[in-house]
């Protein structure tokens, strides 16, 4: 690797299995509304498991693989340092606390479901969550604004799924390869 020299500059430390579990547990506990910025802070700046370049490379790879980016990143970092046990420790650490919290929230919701105030509050919460999702879609779409081919392929996914309520997997299996081939031939 050509980058080996640059990487050597800021000293990094290899975490053990328990360090991985603890680090990702903290991320899961504190990552409200998005874990990624916090993850970089912890992995690169605080605990120095990876250099900035290594982090960006690894994240790029994780985005291209199926699964949640941060989920994949935990597996990637775990595997890199401690093989399969490391991957399991990082992944379980990441999802354990949020899972427990979300189940408790769910139980609270079920318990107070008949209380109109609570129902109204959750309706407001749901509406706000929908707004966050719209905003995320807008931000992701922004770089594609002046790229007609990309817009066509985005719509080719959106319309069947939303308007015609077709299943996702066949839609993806048809649209994704065409998009990849066209992008390879003509650019995005």
């Amino acid at each position, binding site marked *: 690797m050509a980058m080996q020299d640059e990487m050597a500059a800021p000293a990094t430390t290899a975490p053990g299995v328990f360090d991985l579990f603890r680090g990702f547990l903290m991320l899961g506990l504190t990552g409200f509304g998005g*874990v990624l910025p916090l993850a970089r802070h912890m992995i690169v700046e605080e605990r120095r498991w990876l250099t900035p370049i290594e982090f960006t490379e690894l994240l790029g790879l994780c985005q291209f693989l199926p699964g*949640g980016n941060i989920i994949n990143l935990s597996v990637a970092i775990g595997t890199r340092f401690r093989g399969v046990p490391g991957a399991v420790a990082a992944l379980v650490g990441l999802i354990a606390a949020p899972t427990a919290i979300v189940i408790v929230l769910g139980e609270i919701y079920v318990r107070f479901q008949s209380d109109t105030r609570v129902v109204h509050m959750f309706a407001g919460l749901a509406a706000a969550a929908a707004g966050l*999702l719209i905003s995320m*879609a807008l931000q992701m779409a922004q770089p594609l604004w002046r790229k007609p081919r990309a817009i066509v392929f985005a719509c080719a996914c959106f319309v069947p799924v939303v308007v015609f309520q077709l299943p996702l997997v066949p839609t993806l299996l048809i649209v994704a390869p065409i998009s990849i081939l066209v992008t390879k031939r003509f650019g995005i």
Partner: protein
Amino acid sequence: MNANLIALAMIFAQLSLVAFGGGNTTLPEMHRQAVEVYHWTTDAEFAALFALARAAPGPNLMIVPLIGWHVAGVLGMLVAVAGMFGPSSIVTAVALRLWGRFEHQVWRQAVQTGLIPISVGLVAASAALITQASDHAWVLAIVTAIVAIAATKTRLHPLWLLAVGAAIGWTGLGQ
């Protein structure tokens, strides 16, 4: 009960392997399966579960354990979580092992770029479906619009926006 567990495992394992561009791209299919195919939740319940998942810290797919729990308790939760995070994690671990050996830059770049519009289209689809399911009153539509604009135009923490939405909802105004 058993049939439900098998269905949970099948659905989430499938979604796990096609979740390109992050977990949110799988929401439309999760919604279709849970609401229309299996009738595990109503449209409004699904929106509430999604909101709960957004209010909790951690990765953005925390609706998965909630659906599992809702369908079949602790076992359902474990099956759903293993189904959703297992297969993609195995793919990730194996792919990273192989990466050193197969470094075809051209091919990799084409796949990566070609998948961008797909993931944008699917996140937009998720947004449309969740908005449809959530906004059954004009106040809620306004909350969605305000949050969408504020989250796009400002650097406010999403948690504040969720709190504002919950507070406006709490008043019961217009609902």
